[in-house]
């Protein structure tokens, strides 16, 4: 039965491809929801599987067997399998907790400093302007929501493009996109295979905001131009930074611009299939970990002498 618990650890391997295809085929907001929920469930199931491995390993030790009031030895796979699995699981869980804790602290610190700084300025609408030669813009969630934009970014766009930029950032805040990003971060730390899924969720968030911006300003081409010009402006000031390692594949920005320049696609049957596949994969993972946990629970009860074999 231990083999069943390997499934939640293996199924996330299929997630990156399925998530990417889902985003390519589905409307951005729908894709964002499907991918994020699946990533969270897959992450939770792999954690649960690791937890069960640790628990079975511990119950093999006489101390914990006594604590667990086991009267019979716990029926499991041979010790040669169970104990190493438990050790590896403990290491994986500790690693997860460590990196996630560190990442969370870093996020909170960055968020707080941005929030304090924005709060210190006089408010003009929801805009917070930072006097900086580096073009940058981001949505700052909280009460009230803010858009932080640097002067360099404002100067590298014309008035209509700036409206597209503001609409984009407002869509982030209105859509609660930071929750999706936080969920993506959490999932990425739970299972290495979910790291590419985090990138997909980030892209889905941007695509959703792009589409909302295009709808708000009523011009897809204008929105595409604003994104392209903002990115290129950022690049010009960054050229002095040699530490930047170029990516191999085409990045998220050209993808977003191309998607906006293309006509909005009608939903296709293939889209539904890909999403269904991702959901099926997630459901299988959930079922496997639930069954595995119930099985272990049952065997613990047998070992406690509460139930006959």
């Amino acid at each position, binding site marked *: 039965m231990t083999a069943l618990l390997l499934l939640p650890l293996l199924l996330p391997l299929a997630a990156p491809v399925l998530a990417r295809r889902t985003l390519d085929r589905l409307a951005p907001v729908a894709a964002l929801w499907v991918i994020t929920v699946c990533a969270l469930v897959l992450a939770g199931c792999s954690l649960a599987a690791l937890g069960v491995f640790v628990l079975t390993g511990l119950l093999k030790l006489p101390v914990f067997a006594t604590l667990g009031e086991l009267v019979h030895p716990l029926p499991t796979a041979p010790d040669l399998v169970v104990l190493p699995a438990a050790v590896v699981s403990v290491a994986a869980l500790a690693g997860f907790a460590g990196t996630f804790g560190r990442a969370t602290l870093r996020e909170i610190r960055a968020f707080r400093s941005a929030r304090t700084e924005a709060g210190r300025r006089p408010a003009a*609408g929801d*805009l917070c*302007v930072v006097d900086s030669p580096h073009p*940058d813009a981001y949505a700052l969630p909280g009460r009230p929501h803010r858009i932080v934009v640097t002067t360099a970014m404002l100067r590298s766009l014309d008035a209509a493009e700036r409206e597209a930029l503001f609409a984009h950032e407002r869509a982030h805040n209105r859509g609660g996109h930071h929750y999706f990003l936080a969920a993506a971060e959490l999932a990425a730390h739970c299972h290495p295979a979910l790291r590419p899924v985090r990138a997909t969720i980030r892209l889905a968030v941007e695509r959703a905001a792009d589409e909302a911006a295009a709808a708000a300003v009523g011009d897809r081409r204008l929105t595409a131009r604003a994104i392209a010009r903002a990115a290129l402006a950022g690049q010009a000031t960054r050229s002095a930074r040699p530490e930047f390692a170029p*990516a191999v594949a085409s*990045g998220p920005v050209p993808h977003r611009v191309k998607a906006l320049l293309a006509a909005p696609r009608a939903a296709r049957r293939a889209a539904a299939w890909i999403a269904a596949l991702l959901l099926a994969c997630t459901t299988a993972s959930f079922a496997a970990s639930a069954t595995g946990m119930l099985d272990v629970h049952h065997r613990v009860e047998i070992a406690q002498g509460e139930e006959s074999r």
Partner: protein
Amino acid sequence: MTDAKDERRPAGELESSVMAVLWAGDAPLTPGQVQLSLGSDLARTTVTTILTRLHDKGVVERRRQGRGYAYYPVQDAHGLTARRMHSELDRDTDRETVLARFVAQLSPDDERVLRDLLESGER
């Protein structure tokens, strides 16, 4: 953009747009110039009202120009801390924060693709 659409927008969003114009400009701007660079069909009186409100809030300063005023953004006293905050966020090399940024870093390939897309879009 239609006139009706602009007038219907929340006041806060209009204030943001006007602030953006003032920050993007090099010199103080009159309400007429702001109206012109907004590129929308906002009435001049609306722009003037927004500028007056911003001035009351202490976000913009103004000086006499002809028969009216020219407005410019207040260079904040916290400019230094702002720069520090900004570089702090910037230093995060992976920039993997929950703060959704408008644009990510580009690879040289991305840059070329984007320039091509921009050119084909402008033709």
